[in-house]
Structure formats: structure tokens, C-alpha cells
């Protein structure tokens, strides 16, 4: 049943020799990275604020912790998703030979 067959994609496995055709250059612009100790700092700050500040400041500080934790977790997911260099190349150069797609 066509339902069960996943659409197959065939790509030449061996690297094709680099053609002399001009290929669009990808500017390497990277997403911001959270600082490694961002969570620890934010948690410490939240605990300080809750001990000494107003309840609003306390809530805002813990909300901050949540935002930073979420950003870190999203970065991890995004990194895992962007790990195939061929996929990224083909996204930018869909007409390159290496990115041909065959359908049955």
C-alpha cells in the first residue's frame, strides 16, 4: 500500500567532484548561545530576590529562570536538528547535483 512506503530519496553517496559552477555562498550567521552558567546565575539571583525583594521581583526572577531554561533546551533541539551539513547545503542550493531527488 502506498501508505506504508515512505517516499524514498536517492542521493549519490560518493561526493561528486566540485564543479566550477558558482554556488551561492552561505554566510555563516550563528544563533546566540546562552552562557554556560546562565541557569545557575539566574537561580541564585532568584533565591536572593525571594529572600530580600518584593513578591513581584521574586516572581519575575523565577520567570527569568524559566525563560533561560527554555532557551537552553530549544538550542539543544535546534542543534540536533541542524546536524546534517548536506541537508543545510541542499536547502540553500536545491539545484546542485548532490541534491537531486528521485521519486518512484
Amino acid at each position, binding site marked *: 500500500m502506498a501508505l506504508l512506503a515512505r517516499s524514498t530519496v536517492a542521493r549519490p553517496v560518493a561526493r561528486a567532484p566540485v564543479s566550477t559552477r558558482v554556488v551561492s555562498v552561505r554566510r555563516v550567521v550563528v544563533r546566540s548561545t546562552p552562557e554556560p552558567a546562565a541557569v545557575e546565575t539566574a537561580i541564585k539571583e532568584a533565591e536572593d530576590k525571594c529572600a530580600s525583594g518584593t*513578591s513581584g521581583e521574586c516572581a519575575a526572577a523565577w520567570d527569568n529562570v524559566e*525563560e533561560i531554561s527554555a532557551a537552553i533546551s530549544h538550542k539543544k533541539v535546534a542543534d540536533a536538528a541542524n546536524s546534517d551539513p548536506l541537508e543545510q547545503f541542499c536547502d540553500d542550493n*536545491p539545484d546542485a547535483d548532490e541534491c537531486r531527488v528521485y521519486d518512484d
Partner: protein
Amino acid sequence: MQTLNANRVRATPAGLQARSRARVCRVQAAKDGKTVVIGLAADSGCGKSTFMRRMTSIFGGSAKPPAGGNPDSNTLISDMTTVICLDDYHCLDRKGRAEKGVTALAPEAQNFDLMYEQVKAMKEGKAADKPIYNHVTGALDAPEKIESPNILVIEGLHPFYDERVRDLLDFKVYLDISDEIKFAWKIQRDMAERGHSLDSIKKSIEARKPDFDAYIDPQKKHADMIIQVLPTQLVLPTQLVPDDEGKILRVRLIQKEGKKLFDPVYLFDEGSTISWIPCGRKLTCSFPGIKFYYGPDTWYGEDVSVLEMDGQFDKLEELIYVESHLSNTSAKFYGEITQQMLKNSSFPGSNNGTGLLQTIIGLKVREVYERITEKEVVPVS
């Protein structure tokens, strides 16, 4: 490699040429007609949520941030849909909120006037220069220009809070996670991070709860469809292995009745109450099995129909078996739901009710779009 929509092309030189010509153009298809606006209320951070990815996958293409723009943009653009994150309308950045002592959940931190102005502009077909809230730095970055799409999805904490914005929405979805599940998911997400402990996770949730209950939760009465994620009832909490906590889920899809733009999905007999365990002689399931419930109910005074799934899918055949017994799913061919679930099998929730019911909501969004624009959307295969 992402294949295009249903039009398959023979791998002949002419075909490939035509295909590559068609592919080179990454610009969104020219919009001719109405923009349908969907609102999604969720506390899970923007644009990257699984729900959003499932919904946009129904319309084809893969959702990416605007090409050549700020890499920290929260906006996701695919062939027919643009998803914008309402955090971009924060009027107070992290520093500002700390100074004033308000959380990101409070209405004081949002610029509802700008939100209304720009959603209205995009609905009318105009582009908008939308601010960007950078979740990593906590600051507001320079605005990005967003063109008006076929389907605009606004996702965030306050899509239905402001009445003017609410009136612009054609379809509203609210994702309601119960406290126990929220806690279990946050533990799984954060415990590996240095600095976090069970205690800090608990404090973080508790500190946000008052604002959440005051400002976010009341929006759920306005939604057309609500997904509730609750702990399973198939297994006693004491019997649950810690690893399974937050994984075996009871998921309820609450659908408002009497809406012109969509028909609620039902099981066997519309309007009746059904309790269904598909596992038995025809279908063998492994522990803890699957249990469905369907029935009428009321939600904040309005009539609704509830479709509920508790348990986990283990095999493909369970999924297709269940799909074949559901009615009014808005699927365009037999097995479309199963196919979407397979396509997105790496997403979290692909083996339980969250994946199934979110996929169904995606199909309902397509139905809403077709009814408003009176155009047909070719199913992605």
C-alpha cells in the same frame, strides 16, 4: 530531502530541470486571497513547539526562520504558513521586567496595541515590521519585515487576551497542560542542567503560577478547541516507573459545537457517549494499552464534544486501526493521519494522544482555511 507537494516529477532531464527551476524559487507562493489567522495559546515557548510543527506539516514545506534575517528570530515561515511568536510583542525586556517586578505572563509586559495593529495589517494583506524578542539575551532586537501569508498563526501566552486581537482570529486553540504533567516535563527538561534541582524547578513553577492562573488560564474559555494533557488513568501513580511519568498520557480534545468553520471529530455515533478499548481480538496492544472516550459535555457554559485518548501506540497497525474508526477527521484520504504521524515520528508525543489529537487539529485548521477561502488545499503526501 524535503520533497515538494503532491506533484511528482519523473526523473527525466526535462522533469528535473523543471523541478529544479521550480525549487530554486524559495519565495513564498504569491498570496491571492484572504489570510486566515489562527491563534494558539501555549506556555511552551514559541514557534519551536511540536504542536506548531505538526500543524504546519499538514500544509507542506518545512518551517524555517526568515532567510537572511536575524538568526534569533522566533518567526517560522513555510510554503503557506507563517508562525509568529507573541513574545515579540513584549514591551518590557528582561531588564525592564526585573526592574518593575513583573513576569512575562503579566499583561503589563505586552504591547497589545502593536499586536492588534500588525495582526490586523497582515490579515488585510499588508506586510508588517515586527519586533523581535531575543529569548537568549532577553532584549528586543531590531524589527524584521514579515509578509502577509495565506495562513498566519500567532502563538504565545496571550493570543486571546486582548479583545480586538481575539476578534481577528478565525480559529483558536488552547493547549492546557495539567500541573502534574507540567512538573514531570520540566523535570525531564531541566534536571540535566547544571544548577537546577528538584527544588528549583518546583519553585520556578510555583512562582509563575499566580500570574498564570490570573492571566493565561482564563483564555481557555475562548478557544474553539482545547487540548488537555493529563496523567494517565490506565496505571496507578504508584505503579508508574519514574521514566514513564509524563510519557503515558491521557489527552482530551475538547471541541466547541455549532461552529460554522469546522465539524467536530467523533467516534461511532455523533452525540452519544462511547467508551472504547480497541485492543482485543483483532488488535493486540502491549502494556498499558489504549482507551478512548467520546461524549458531549459543556465547557464554560457552551456545548462541546470531547474525544479522549489514554495510553500509547506501540505499532503502526494500532494507529491505522484507530484512524479507521474515527469519523469527521477532515482527512482527505484513508490513512492521512497515520501518514502524518509517521512523517513526524521523531517528534515528541508521536506514540500517544498528543501527536494524534494535534494532527487532527492540524486537519481541522485546513478545513477552516478551505471554508473561509473556498479553495482546496492539496494534501501533502
